[in-house]
């Protein structure tokens, strides 16, 4: 790969997905894009770059998706989900007792483990949420991971990462070597393709936003820009949850960390006017009404 080609791809990826590659990630590009180029019948990275410059739509998507890191697992890092159960939801339940509805956004849901972990947490809360409308929206840049997330089918290896065995038995059905999460939990989640670099005001406002292990790939300005826009989609008393290696500190004052609750943030008041709740006009969102048990 020539330096010019590398620079082209760096900029291309920054523009399309926010991915911020340092000057020495040639090996990463080659390991991910060479197989893709070969599959498309191209001789190598050089020809791939030419095709991209020529503006080949399908190829653009494939290149962008091939360069994303989709690694995830159930109850990743555990602590955020303990906070969700012990801090976030009790507060939300109190604050929303009047309207009995909660909206949660997984802003980089990948193959579904994170939104399903939240769904399982909510199910485990049982009676406390009976009669509540619960909306979980999971978005991701990559259509491919969304398809997998929707299917809710996981390999034996995947269901052994982070998922307590009791939860596997309770919420999954085994078919041969794979495990599928129950329809009831699948129905709690609505999946949408969304690039965080683009406008997301149409999603409306949320009580809880999980945005974990995606901002780490972006440069500082992009992070700040996304934090500021997230602040407009969150209720004044809502919660933002970031990944273990992510923080708002030193980047923006639209959010502040919650003391003793690692990874949890609250919006600050001086944020811009909140976007309205979504008009449920186009497609009726799948809103699971929690059944009693």
């Amino acid at each position, binding site marked *: 790969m020539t330096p010019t080609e590398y620079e082209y791809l760096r900029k291309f990826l920054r523009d399309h997905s926010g991915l911020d590659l340092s000057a020495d990630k040639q090996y990463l590009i080659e390991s991910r894009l060479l197989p893709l180029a070969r599959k498309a019948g191209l001789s190598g990275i050089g020809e791939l770059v030419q095709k991209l410059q020529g503006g080949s739509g399908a190829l653009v998507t494939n290149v962008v998706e091939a360069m994303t890191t989709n690694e995830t*697992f159930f109850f990743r*890092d*555990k*602590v955020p989900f303990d906070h969700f159960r012990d801090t976030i939801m009790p507060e939300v339940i109190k604050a929303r007792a009047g309207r009995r509805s909660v909206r949660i956004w997984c802003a980089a849901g990948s193959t579904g483990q994170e939104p399903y972990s939240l769904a399982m947490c909510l199910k485990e809360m049982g009676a406390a949420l009976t009669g509540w409308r619960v909306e979980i929206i999971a978005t991701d840049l990559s259509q491919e991971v969304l398809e997998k997330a929707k299917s809710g089918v996981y390999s*034996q*290896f995947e269901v*052994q*990462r*982070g998922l*307590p*065995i*009791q939860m*596997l*038995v309770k919420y999954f059905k*085994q078919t041969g*070597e794979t495990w599928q999460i129950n329809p009831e939990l699948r129905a709690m989640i609505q999946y949408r393709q969304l690039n965080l670099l683009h406008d997301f005001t149409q999603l409306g406002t949320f009580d809880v936003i999980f945005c974990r292990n995606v901002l780490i790939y972006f440069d500082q300005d992009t992070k700040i820009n996304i934090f500021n826009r997230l602040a407009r989609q969150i209720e004044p008393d809502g919660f933002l949850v970031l990944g*273990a290696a992510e923080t708002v500190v030193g980047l923006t004052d639209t959010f502040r960390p919650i003391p003793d609750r690692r990874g949890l943030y609250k919006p600050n008041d001086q944020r811009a006017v909140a976007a309205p709740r979504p008009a449920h006009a186009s497609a009726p969102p799948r809103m699971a009404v929690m059944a009693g048990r």
Partner: protein
Amino acid sequence: MKTCLVVDDSSVVRKIARRILEGLEFEVTEAEDGSKALEICQWKLPDAVLLDWNMPVMDGFEFMGHMRRLPGGDQPKVVFCTTENNVAHIAQALSGGANEYIMKPFNKDIIADKFAQVGLIPVGQAFV
């Protein structure tokens, strides 16, 4: 240092498990079947048992039953590690007193995850 008893009739599996567990800072002892494991437990109970199901002489499920009835036998965390990968076996293990369940093949990530799950190691402990 926490102790883990690895019970499996395959010496290869025991060796792989030992390497992983030592990486997680466990002191490891090995047994090749349930009855040998029980002898060790009667002498001294470990903090954790990584337990195969199908073994000659005494299988893992039977061993667990005996071990759980020893004085203090409710303390060790029992993590099954077996090729039996169906819900019936998992449910049986859990109701028989198992704390976690690994379906073979396994690797270090799965062992670390499952051991963290039952509180044997801190969540997200990195390998040294």
